[in-house]
């Protein structure tokens, strides 16, 4: 029985991953910023599978409480074997680019808080010489596009951070898993018109579960995004800059 903390556990994607771990009998410590939502998520899982679930309300922007959160999770579950960091927001690019305080806020949620949480997890697992840190980044972090570059840059920051962290943690036997979903049909994208490229949260959640079990370095989810992003990254900048993407 493993002990897993999920930050942003009310996310449509993370819920699906949580269910799969619960099915395996793993114990869960679920964190998100709304206790009512966490209760709904917990009840959903417990009505299906018999396991132990703790819920904890916290805003990722409370940076000075990050360490306390880990202490609490470790104390409640009696240690940790894996952490999944899943929270995030998808800002409206146009509105955000015009408001400096919004840019900073989005970076704080999607990049700074993630790096902070992952760093605390890393220090803990490095001592234990085992563990898994999985983080939901995004294909949007692979290349900046005018329609989405604030979110994209925050995710790009996370991706680069995780590359370095993986390099460091490999020596201690800790896996660092970068998850790069493409477009997923969740509350985050509810306002967007849907195309066949949208994946279901269940598919992505299962991909995360598998990537965490195997300790894979980078998981594009669904897998075809690896090819799409490969092509997008290959476009020379002098052409790319003129494109409307």
């Amino acid at each position, binding site marked *: 029985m493993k002990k897993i903390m999920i930050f942003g556990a009310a996310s449509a994607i993370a819920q699906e991953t949580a269910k799969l771990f619960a099915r395996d009998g793993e114990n869960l410590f679920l964190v998100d910023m709304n206790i*009512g939502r966490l209760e709904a998520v917990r009840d959903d899982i417990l*009505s299906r599978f018999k396991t132990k679930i703790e819920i904890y309300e916290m805003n990722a922007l409370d940076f000075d409480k990050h360490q306390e959160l880990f202490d609490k999770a470790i104390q409640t579950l009696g240690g940790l074997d894996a952490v999944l960091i899943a929270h995030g927001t998808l800002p409206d690019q146009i509105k955000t680019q015009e408001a400096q305080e919004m840019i900073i806020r989005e970076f704080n949620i999607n990049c700074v808080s993630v790096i902070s949480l992952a760093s605390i997890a890393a220090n803990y697992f490095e001592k234990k010489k085992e563990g898994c840190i999985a983080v939901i980044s995004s294909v949007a972090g692979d290349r900046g596009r005018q329609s989405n570059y604030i979110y994209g840059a925050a995710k790009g920051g996370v991706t680069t951070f995780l590359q370095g962290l993986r390099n460091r943690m490999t020596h201690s036997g800790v896996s660092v898993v970068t998850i790069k979903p493409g477009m997923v049909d969740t509350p985050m994208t509810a306002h967007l*018109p849907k195309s066949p490229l949208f994946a279901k949260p269940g598919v992505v959640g299962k991909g995360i579960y598998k990537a965490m079990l195997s300790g894979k370095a980078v998981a594009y989810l669904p897998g075809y995004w690896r090819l799409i992003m490969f092509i997008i990254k290959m476009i020379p900048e002098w052409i790319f800059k003129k494109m409307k993407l």
Partner: protein
Amino acid sequence: MIIGDYESWGRYPKYKPNDVFSVYWRNEIPDLGKFPNKILPYAWGKSYGDSCLNENGILIDTKNLSKFISFDEENGLFRCEAGVTLASILDFFVPRGWFLSVTPGTKFISVAGAVANDVHGKNHHNSGSFGCHVTKFELVRSSGERLICSNEENTELFKATIGGLGLTGLITWVEFKLKPCPSAFFAMESEKFYNVDEFFDINDKSEKTFDYTVSWVDCTASGSSLGRGIYNRGNHAHPEEYEIPKLPNQKLKSFPFDAAFINSFSVNVFNMLYFNKQINRIEKNVVHYDPFFYPLDAVLHWNKAYGKQGFLQYQFVVPFGNEKDTIREILKQVSGSGMSSFLTVLKTFGDMKSPGMLSFPRPGVTMAIDFRMNGDKTLKFLESLDSIVRESGGVIYPAKDARMSAEDFQKFYPQWTEFEKYIDPAFSSSFWRRVTKKINN
């Protein structure tokens, strides 16, 4: 989804809402009194006509209320959010030995939709409708009240909401009974019948020993073959009695585009081939619940095969008495009309009473016939069927209806004036506005 995606299954009529509002969390339902237009819950849009549509109004999309809440294994009592599909319940529970007490012919519907239309299935003759197995639900009203409705609390709203067409408030969760099942498989028998009388003979015998029965009728057949078809019956397959096959690994296919594939030629060919496909008079098989209950679900969006103009399903029930003549008369009309139906289903309802105030099922014979929408010609023809149903004391099923007259509805469901008292003032539907129009006489 975009507004244009909020269609009904028959894709007729094409009524667009002004706006759609999605709910995600059962404890964060918005103030339902604040919307500028009338509202109506919408789940998976598997109702055929306009009962899930709200032209120029607002739809509250409940698909994302998709969480389980609790399961009491001792009593088989399951509670889940309103938008949970029967498919996801089966996926989870069948491997654990539980089945739905009642299921309609598609598993891609929500539990709240099953309540709002008080749906029936192949076991109506012994288990009644879905509402017979509902113990409790929560209803959010535009006044802001959250009411627990059951046989003990808010009983009038409990009865009005079962079969209440989504008009009495927003259901956030439903508690209902599941039943134990010995496997995911069914011991099924198919028996050919060559006319209406034979159907009733086989039916009388089969209903005594089979939990599930339904028949397909070849409505292109006429003359001495009028009313021929195939009678399907089955029971849960016990592993001690039957060899249970390995789980099928079927992938869902999806009908890719709008195309009028279904026309009188293809319908005639299909019906003939289907009837003749079965060589022996009786065939026995052990089949998975998917082909047993949901043969149509194997092709997603099969409704698009009728083309852009859509189709109508005509489902009625007529009381026992002169039911044989009525069914014969209807079949004569259909086969003579040239508006042949791809799929015609025949079944008898039992006498188990649902709490539902406005529920459709009642003792008698029910028949469902699909028609491609061909404008006035189709509508006129269905009016001629109405008169047969009316005269034999039958009623039409609102969940499938897109066109019955206000006069007929008000005669079929005289309790509608009583029901109206329980409608939430902020709620309405295209169906309801249509069938409650003032009648001039």
